[in-house]
């Protein structure tokens, strides 16, 4: 079984990233969405800059609104995006 996690970026965050998704490999001790993103920022300056940008960000795990403390495991789909502005 793969230890990959898909991370999706939307809207202004997608533009700041210059791409709409990453496939990240989950290290053994990474248990939460927050930890996953924090580890990745250390090695990905684009992600670090994008997440440091202005405005709050929201997180969804497997298409459910969630937050950085949510558990993450192999096969999960994580999405990071600005507050939604539909309608």
């Amino acid at each position, binding site marked *: 079984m793969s230890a990959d996690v898909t991370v*999706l970026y*939307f809207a*202004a965050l997608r533009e700041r990233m210059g791409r709409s998704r990453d496939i990240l490999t989950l290290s053994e001790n990474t248990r939460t969405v927050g930890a996953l993103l924090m580890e990745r920022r250390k090695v990905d300056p684009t992600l670090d800059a994008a997440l440091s940008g202005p405005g709050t960000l929201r997180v*969804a795990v497997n298409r459910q609104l969630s937050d950085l403390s949510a558990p993450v495991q192999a096969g999960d789909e994580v*999405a990071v*995006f*600005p507050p939604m*502005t*539909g*309608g």
Partner: protein
Amino acid sequence: MPLIRIVVGESAFDMGKETARLLTESDGVGGVGSFLGVVRGGNGLVALTLEHYPGMCEDVLTALAQEAVARFSLAGCIVIHRVGRLVVGEPIVLVLTAAAHRAAALNGTRFLIDRLKTGAPFWKMEEFADGRRVWVESRAEDEVAAANW
């Protein structure tokens, strides 16, 4: 079973046909409430581009519709949300709710559009005549309207 119809896509929709469908497929309807959102002009706005999270949009809208049906005893509801580039005057979103009585239908409509605005993964980018492109920021009053339900 109340009709729940959720459509997310680029196509235009026909409000008259959707209303007829809701009436045909729902029982005991005395009233249909609706809200139609359109691209509002002004300040040099030319178009909106709607981005969305495929899959999650449909999941969220279905869950909201189910909550509305249960909470307001709706006989049925339809939510259609367009994505892609839409010019000034074009329809963006349609909420239709059918119920035995008008208060339930109108409350259902308002609940759905209020909650959809900040709870469904759509994002609007404004495009102006001078070439500027600006992502719409979420409005505090929309967050309040959604939280009040």
